[in-house]
């Protein structure tokens, strides 16, 4: 069978690529200095402890080397990153009050529509600040807090202080330290004991300014027996300069609580996505990650679950699609730190047109964590031999009373499968697209509907290029 090669300069990402004029109200100088940090903190009117925290983080940032494993970060010059860009709008509670161009951006991304139809609350961040936030009244009455981080510090300082960067510490790595120093925006969610949030909350992060960084902080606390589904969406239009995203997500799942965290990252291909996500799960708690990584030039993202209470469990369902010029290094980390904990990791990756997909995972069982169960499955699909696909799952066991299974597969679409579908009248291009959609199906069915549609469109788009 003749094999055709797709050549697309960059995927037409439609609405994601529409950019607005860069007219920010305030911009910090490029590069990172103590003065800039103090500026940010003053501008935000923060309590002293936060200013101190930022400065301490800056110190750590300066003392840590850029990681040498994984992605090539040599083109990422910290001095070029405008760390703080505040849009010309304060936070609004009604879309009507959001400036026209920003509102149009979110309209095109379908956020207000989704809010009306299927969400219990929405947050929208534009560059460094949250421009819109809403939450259903009934949730407010039950004590659910869903707001931007800046407001959270003002109104719920005690809670924030108790949890902020305790799970991801600035000492952990260079970009966690950077985040601690310059973080801005993000979401804060607090679900009180026993409250079940039936519809998802969604925060959408949009980076508009060229050469900027986005450092949103997401802090979620789901108290005993409560449950929540949180959706995070990210995108940015394409610019020629390097953009940096070094967000941080800290998820606290208390006894018997349940949290599902769904993410679709579709950053433009000039983005360095160096995000840190971590969750800690107490007794009988459940953490579910659903993660799609499609965009960015470089991603290094390894969501970690620390199962610290007995019978805590976590699931990770992830898909990575690396196209031309992309290096996507992702994977799930699980620490079984208590007995009877279970984890289930299911990761799929596709590489195409010279893209490089790297699965780098960790599954660790600590000495006291007996009766743990874990299954890890990694499947990689290569669509041509210009691309690269690597799988490196690390398994560390310090206990015997466990049940661990792991499997990984790598390969391309089988010619026999294509032949079978074509023998039923389906064209070669459609046959391939169909097989790829089938490959990601276990993941797409876990995604919120609009994201599942988006993923399928992305696959179709990738294959349309090879027609003719």
């Amino acid at each position, binding site marked *: 069978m003749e094999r055709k090669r797709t050549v697309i300069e960059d995927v037409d990402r439609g609405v994601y690529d529409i950019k607005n004029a860069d007219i920010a109200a305030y911009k910090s100088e490029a590069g990172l200095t103590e003065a800039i940090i103090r500026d940010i903190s003053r501008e935000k009117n923060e309590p002293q402890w936060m200013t101190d925290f930022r400065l301490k983080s800056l110190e750590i940032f300066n003392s840590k080397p850029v990681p040498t494993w994984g992605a090539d970060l040599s083109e990422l010059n910290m001095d070029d990153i405008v760390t703080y860009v505040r849009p010309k709008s304060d936070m609004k509670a009604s879309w009507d009050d959001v400036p026209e161009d920003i509102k149009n951006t979110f309209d095109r991304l379908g956020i207000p529509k989704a809010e009306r139809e299927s969400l219990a609350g929405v947050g929208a961040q534009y560059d460094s600040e949250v421009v819109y936030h809403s939450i259903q009244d009934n949730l407010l009455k039950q004590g659910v807090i869903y707001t931007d981080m800046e407001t959270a510090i003002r109104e719920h300082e005690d809670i924030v202080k108790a949890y902020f960067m305790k799970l991801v510490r600035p000492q952990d790595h260079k970009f966690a330290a950077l985040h601690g120093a310059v973080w801005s925006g993000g979401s804060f969610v607090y679900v009180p004991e026993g409250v079940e949030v039936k519809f998802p909350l969604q925060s959408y992060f949009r980076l508009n300014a060229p050469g900027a960084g986005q450092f949103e902080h997401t802090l979620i606390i789901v108290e005993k027996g409560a449950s929540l589904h949180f959706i995070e969406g990210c995108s940015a239009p394409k610019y020629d300069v390097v953009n940096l995203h070094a967000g941080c997500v800290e998820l606290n799942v208390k006894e018997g609580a349940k949290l599902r965290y769904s993410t679709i990252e579709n950053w433009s291909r000039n983005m360095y996505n160096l995000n840190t996500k971590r969750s800690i799960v107490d007794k009988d708690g459940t953490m579910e990650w659903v993660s799609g990584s499609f965009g960015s030039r470089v991603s290094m993202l390894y969501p970690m679950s620390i199962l610290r209470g007995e019978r805590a469990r976590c699931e990770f369902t992830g898909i990575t699609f690396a196209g031309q010029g992309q290096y996507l290094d992702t994977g799930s980390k699980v620490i079984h730190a208590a007995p009877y904990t279970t984890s289930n990791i299911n990761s799929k990756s596709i590489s195409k047109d010279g893209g490089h997909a790297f699965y780098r995972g960790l599954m660790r069982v600590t*000495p006291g964590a007996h009766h743990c169960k874990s299954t890890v499955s990694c499947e990689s699909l290569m669509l041509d031999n210009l691309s690269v696909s690597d799988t490196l799952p690390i*398994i*560390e066991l310090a206990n015997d009373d466990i049940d661990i299974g*792991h499997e990984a*597969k790598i*390969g391309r679409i089988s010619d026999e499968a294509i032949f079978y579908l074509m023998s039923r009248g389906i064209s070669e291009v459609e046959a391939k697209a169909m097989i790829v959609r089938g490959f990601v199906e276990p993941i797409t069915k876990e995604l919120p509907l609009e994201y599942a549609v988006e993923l399928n469109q992305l696959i179709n788009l990738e294959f349309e290029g090879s027609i003719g």
Partner: protein
Amino acid sequence: MYNKTLLDRILVQSKNKEQGQESRRISFERYEKEEFPIWKRLKIDKSTLPDYQKYNNQKTLMYRQEGLHVTPIHSQEVIFSNELLDKDYGPSIKHRTLTEAFSNTGTYISVDEGIEITEPIIIQLPLDQDNPLLLDHHVIHAKKKSRVVVVLDYRDDNVDGFHNGVVNIIVEEGADVQVIKLQNFSKRSTHIFSGLALVKRDGKVTFNSIDLGSTLAVTDFSTYLQEENSEGVVESIYLGDGKSKMDLSYNMYHEGRRTKSSILVKGALLHEAHKVFRGNLFFSKGAKKASGSEQEYVILLNDTVKSDSIPALMCQEDDVQGEHAASAGQVDENKLFYLMSRGLTEKEAKQLIIMASFTPVIDQIPIEGLQEMLEKEISTRLSS
């Protein structure tokens, strides 16, 4: 200690041919440039080397046969091609080049075209009071369509031994080589082993590693499947007990088309043993229709053991199949219960289950008495 003076002394004393001398010099240059490794996972960051001394304990058991040439290493005009010296292999370049430069024993085996060596060549390399240091370097050269089996048998006399070995295997067109490394040192010895196989068209190399002893056992075996239709097989078993540390690393480099590889590792860990397994399948661009698989199964017998596994698939070619599977856990409770209900003691039942897990590997190894020896070893260690 391991300096130019020592090298010169060895070169003067040995009967090495010029080419062998030159290869020692090249390796020495590299040795001097390299640093000793830090084995982070095993928490070993110091490398004290025992003083150099001669080794006079090697015994080679074989049947003479036309077309088979077995001589001491460096005594022949052995082809130490740049390829052999430049390839990156071994757990640490420092240790490998140390032995390449200062080897105190070793064998060169060459099999002529079309010759099949029917009986395994057994090389015994025991450590004892007078010979506690073993730096052995062996080269096996199987010419076109030849066939040979070589056994490297490492044991000791309960001394503080140090072993650092290197094996190079060249498998030419259609040849078939099997190398079996049997390591049963006492808990006082250190064992480091670097293996390299270069496999040409239609050739096949099989490496069996049986690691039963030593305080630190580090093995790294790299197979380069350089030409079309070549095949690499690693089948390995290990038994870790006491406070032993083990680092087993098997690498398959698929370069030619239709190359095949498989790695099968089975092990059991007791007491405070710590094992690290690394399996790497590399598929280079152009290695079309290649297929590789790695499987690792470990039985954990105490809650104080440590078992790390790092299986990797590195792929630059889409037209390949790569697979990895691993599992870890205790002896299956149901099996244990079943066997005990038939009157076996728990120890006997466990021993039987571990042996059953090893059987697929043992069956491939043409050494008489291996099964009995393993049974005895497992039984002894389960009792301690």
